[in-house]
């Protein structure tokens, strides 16, 4: 629901590098996007595409030696990528929250759930312990923990996986952030619980007017939850647009391949498409368009020039197919080796 309101989060030309002994790895390459207040942006892609790192960069928790080499990140107009640690700490939790993949390891096993909630609340808001505890109780009820009054003093190991992730969500929301970065929030859960957690997340964020950057490799979750989606490939955004459009009318060959590989109920007899080859390693990113070795539509231009995001239907795609000059002379892909 992009509106004329100023964006909540702006990421411009973000570059994340990893200096290693074999040279510098470029894990996130010139990525730009925006998130509007209250909107859910899905970020989808294969493992290693750079989606988690982008999320980490936004909350300022890139693990060394990884670092932001270039670009800007602005939250409500204010730059946050270059803040000193203490300033950024105040932003975390209070303005940007985060949810990680594994609810078991996300919670400190030695402290009760209530204590962890109260601590987080009191870090950001000047409430007394009693007030904070009351707020914690409210939150636990909101996320659907039955018997919250006495479960608030239970330890993480006393909750089931789905319950734990609810607690994690409560913790992420308790200081009232405007944006949540959710990194694979359902991947570690049973399929039957995934739907519940996603629905919970969606509902809460709508109620609290919180935007979500939902990072996942599961297209189904995106289809259910997101307003817009960004497809990442090899550290770059391949396509970005409203969810309906990207799914039904994919504009980038990679996205087309992804959508074709998802089985649909009711379709019979059609083979699932498979994209030949695999995503390149970060040390061997091809020249020009990163996807070109696997692309059926490639032309000479794709081997040489790197495409930026450009208008394509209702979305934007980084593909020369949508450029007036096209892809040039088509280059047929060599038959894939066994």
């Amino acid at each position, binding site marked *: 629901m992009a509106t004329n309101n100023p964006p909540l989060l702006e990421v411009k030309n973000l570059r994340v590098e990893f200096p290693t002994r074999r040279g510098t790895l470029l894990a996130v390459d010139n990525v730009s996007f925006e998130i509007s207040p209250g909107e859910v942006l899905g970020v989808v892609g294969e493992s290693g595409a750079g989606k988690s790192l982008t999320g980490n960069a936004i909350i300022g928790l890139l693990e060394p030696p990884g670092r932001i080499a270039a670009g800007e990140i602005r939250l409500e107009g204010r730059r946050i990528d270059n803040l000193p640690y203490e300033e950024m700490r105040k932003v975390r939790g209070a303005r940007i929250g985060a949810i990680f993949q594994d609810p078991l390891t996300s919670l400190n*096993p030695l402290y009760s759930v209530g204590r962890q909630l109260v601590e987080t609340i009191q870090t950001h808001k000047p409430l007394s312990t009693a007030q904070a505890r009351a707020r914690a109780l409210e939150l636990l009820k909101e996320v659907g923990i039955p018997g919250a009054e006495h479960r608030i003093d*239970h330890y993480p190991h*006393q909750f089931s996986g789905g*319950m734990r992730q609810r607690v994690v969500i409560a913790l992420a929301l308790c200081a009232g952030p405007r944006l949540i970065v959710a990194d694979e929030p359902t991947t570690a859960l049973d399929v039957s619980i995934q739907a519940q957690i996603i629905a919970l997340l969606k509902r809460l964020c709508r109620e609290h007017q919180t935007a979500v950057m939902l990072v996942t490799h599961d297209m189904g979750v995106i289809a259910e939850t997101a307003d817009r989606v960004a497809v990442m490939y090899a550290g770059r955004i391949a396509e970005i647009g409203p969810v309906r459009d990207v799914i039904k009318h994919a504009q980038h060959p990679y996205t087309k391949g992804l959508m074709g590989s998802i089985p649909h109920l009711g379709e019979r007899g059609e083979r699932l498409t498979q994209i030949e080859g695999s995503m390149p390693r970060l040390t061997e990113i091809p020249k020009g368009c990163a996807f070109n070795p696997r692309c059926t539509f490639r032309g000479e231009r794709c081997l040489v020039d790197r495409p930026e995001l450009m208008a394509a239907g209702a979305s934007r795609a980084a593909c020369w197919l949508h450029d007036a000059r096209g892809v040039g002379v088509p280059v047929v892909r060599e038959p894939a080796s066994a």
Partner: protein
Amino acid sequence: MLAFILRRLVQSVAVLLVVGLVSFSLFRYVGDPINGMVGQDTPASEREALKEKLGLNDPAPVQFLHFIGNAAKGWFGLSYRTSEPVNRMILERLPATLELSFCAALFALLIGLPMGVYTGLYPRHWSSRALQAVSLLGVSLPTFVIGILLILVFSVMLRWLPSFGRGETVNLGWWTTGFLRWKGIEALIMPAITLGLFQLTLIMRLVRSEMLEVMRTDYIKFARARGLTNRAINFGHALKNTLVPVITITGLQLGSIIAFSVVTETVFAWPGVGQLFIQSVQFVDIPVMAAYLMLIGLLFVLINLAVDLLYFAVDPRLRGGGLARAGGH
């Protein structure tokens, strides 16, 4: 919880029995107990009579039970070397060893723990690296070398501290303490440092590596993502989680201190149980060896038990609870 304690108690008794078995085997089968007690030219008939009197002709299991019974009462017979009752010899010297071990342990903990936390929190700082290097030295230097070096510097060259003995001690009932006299305390300093240094470096390295592990966990990452202060993260979350495994190992190390007192007591001529043990090995004084073994076994078992209970108290995952499926997800 009760089941846990009971189980541990049973295990402890089992271990003690095994130690007892080893002690008993030593007693009975190594060397000839009779030879140690009589002269060269005692006639065979007297030896036989002695054997009978000491119950050495009874079947082995009976002798074992006898031995355990005696051990439980604290009787280990007479020393082959001095013919004194072994238990009296040990009791005389126990306070010396215990005081020394206590001081060494205190020294190791009070310095090792904070140093470990510091180097764990700031591992790349030059001071941390320096401490790491020094700790490596501590682990590499054998205890007796440290002792000798200390004696060389502080006794022989500087003449500040005494190089042997306990200095002055005061009798409190059957306990003798060195704490109440300045000279007693002086005599404690170098041995305590020598004994504690190895443990100190061990503790420091352990705490450091645990800290580093903990700092990389997801819950610390999540805590940071929630904007908790460094203080809350380092001392509230990280430290508590670090201490849980550290407690176990530290407790076991304390037992190690008591065992290592053997070396320190030799270097500093400290009249403790350790020195007694070394003498007994040199002279093949079996009763003393056996008694020392049981004593150490008992101490270790008690320490292990205490550590387990402590662990229990600190880690909520061990106390009942488990998964409470309170309906729904």
